[in-house]
């Protein structure tokens, strides 16, 4: 998969910007707050229809503009595609593939796929469980676009059920249909997360051994809020129902939903110890790098071609040895787009063949 051309109109701090990519590595160099990460965000939006930074589409549109447009020309198997995403302050979006408007997200997702690795991911191990769920969800959206629809449905049920729990007085019988729907939509998410980690964990272990040179054994476990002894529809539904019954008094007291995949967790262990408390900075970086490589490999296996790799402000955070390993893994095969404030801490071969741009106040200039 190769992103040839990216064109932005009124997106973040870009008035109009076209970029043509060449070569396998592109480095976007610039001071803070010039718009480097905005470019990565634009690519990620086209790949996942989700921004890790923006709450509302209004945040993505240039000040005093009504709409923003993003367009990408992607070389992919079996046919190239042109993606156009129009954002409006109202939140209404228009999605088009090859100038054909697509009514559903599912029909837009999947044309461009990317593994996103930012300095925030270095917090994935030590940060809150919400960050790990976000990582699971975004990985799943790219692997199986239908997941985005399932996630939206679950979130809607959750919002409605929480609104009901906040009502005074609450008729408990009114909860029953919402419980049924929470179980139905939640079980779909749990099963897919379970399946993802089953496929991803062995790949991550192999990468982890390679990067840490077999120093430590990595273990990844899915710890769903509803205990899941096996990935079976009926078993999960029964457990979900039971947990809802057990937690009902607490839910009524706290006026919020306490059972469901919105409270899932993923556990990382190194040599049997929880990585969250036990792992050093360096070990955490190795772990996250292994996860990202596993994501890349899984996407490549399923798609039959490598996705893009977006390294936002993160490459210089890795030591020279890890940078060298990463380059060996991806070079020649994976289109990589890198942002950085300086080139000093780069492993020199990264710079050798790379296309370089300078980003200054919403302008991208070839170096």
């Amino acid at each position, binding site marked *: 998969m190769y992103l040839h051309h990216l064109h932005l109109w009124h997106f973040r701090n870009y008035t109009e910007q076209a970029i043509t990519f060449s070569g396998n590595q592109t480095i976007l160099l610039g001071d803070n707050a010039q718009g480097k990460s905005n470019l990565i965000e634009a690519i990620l939006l086209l790949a996942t229809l989700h921004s890790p930074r923006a709450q509302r589409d209004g945040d993505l549109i240039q000040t005093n503009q009504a709409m923003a447009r993003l367009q990408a020309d992607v070389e992919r198997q079996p046919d190239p595609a042109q993606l156009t995403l129009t954002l409006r302050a109202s939140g209404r979006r228009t999605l088009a593939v090859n100038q054909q408007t697509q009514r559903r997200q599912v029909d837009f997702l999947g044309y461009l796929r990317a593994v996103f690795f930012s300095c925030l991911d270095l917090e994935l191990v030590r940060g809150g469980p919400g960050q790990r769920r976000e990582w699971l969800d975004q990985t799943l959206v790219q692997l199986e676009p239908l997941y985005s629809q399932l996630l939206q449905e679950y979130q809607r049920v959750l919002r409605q059920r929480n609104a*009901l729990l906040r009502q005074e007085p609450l008729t408990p019988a*009114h909860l029953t249909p919402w419980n049924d729907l929470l179980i139905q939509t939640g079980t779909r998410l749990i099963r897919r997360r379970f399946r993802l980690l089953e496929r991803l964990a062995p790949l991550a272990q192999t990468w982890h051994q390679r990067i840490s040179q077999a120093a430590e054994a990595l273990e990844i476990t899915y710890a769903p809020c509803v205990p899941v002894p096996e990935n079976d529809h009926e078993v999960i539904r029964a457990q979900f129902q039971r947990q809802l019954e057990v937690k009902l008094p607490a839910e009524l007291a706290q006026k919020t939903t306490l059972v469901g995949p919105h409270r899932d967790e993923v556990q990382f262990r190194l040599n049997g110890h929880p990585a969250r408390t036990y792992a050093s900075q360096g070990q955490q970086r190795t772990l996250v790098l292994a996860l990202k490589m596993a994501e890349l490999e899984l996407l490549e296996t399923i798609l039959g071609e490598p996705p893009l790799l977006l390294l936002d402000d993160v490459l210089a955070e890795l030591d020279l040895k890890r940078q060298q390993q990463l380059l060996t893994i991806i070079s020649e095969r994976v289109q990589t787009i890198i942002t950085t404030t300086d080139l000093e801490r780069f492993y020199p071969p990264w710079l050798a063949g790379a296309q370089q741009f300078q980003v200054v106040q919403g302008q991208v200039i070839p170096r």
Partner: protein
Amino acid sequence: MSSAYTRPLARLIERLQRLPGIGPKSAQRLALHLLKQPDQEIHALANALLEAKQQVGHCQICYHLSAEPICEICANPERDNQTICVVTDSRDVIALEKTREYRGKYHVLGGVISPMDGIGPEQLTITALVKRVGETQAKEVILALSPTIEGETTILYLGRLLQPLTRVTRIASGLPVGGDLEYADELTLAKALEGRREL
């Protein structure tokens, strides 16, 4: 946009713009068109608006929009009194009537359950429906609600309430007529499979 127009015209444009589906440009076009019409046309339109608002209420039995206390469908002796099709609003009655396939009666809920919008079962005509099912000794209640999250919840709620009283069915959802299996997404297929029936 309308501020450049003389006051009465600007007011008309502004009023039209409040209607659903009418943006500033459509409102402007409609207003200018109306101004060109002869006086009697405008009177007829204004009267139609007022009369519709004054005369149209809800049918006392099914809550369909009706100028009479009992709507034409409920008053029709040819129609099956013991089959009740439950719909969200009057638009759905019109859509189902167009099929000419249904010979039973309707019940208009007036919305679907949505706690975020403050709509619970009490805000809908559910109590009246339960009473009606008992009184008419209905043989079947057909739930014809959209398969949205809120529609599903309402179906589940009504199902629990009515199943002790009568046979409750829901309309099938899934593949569109003429749709090709291989182009349907996984979720639509799963729903269609759930709703399968004997040949």
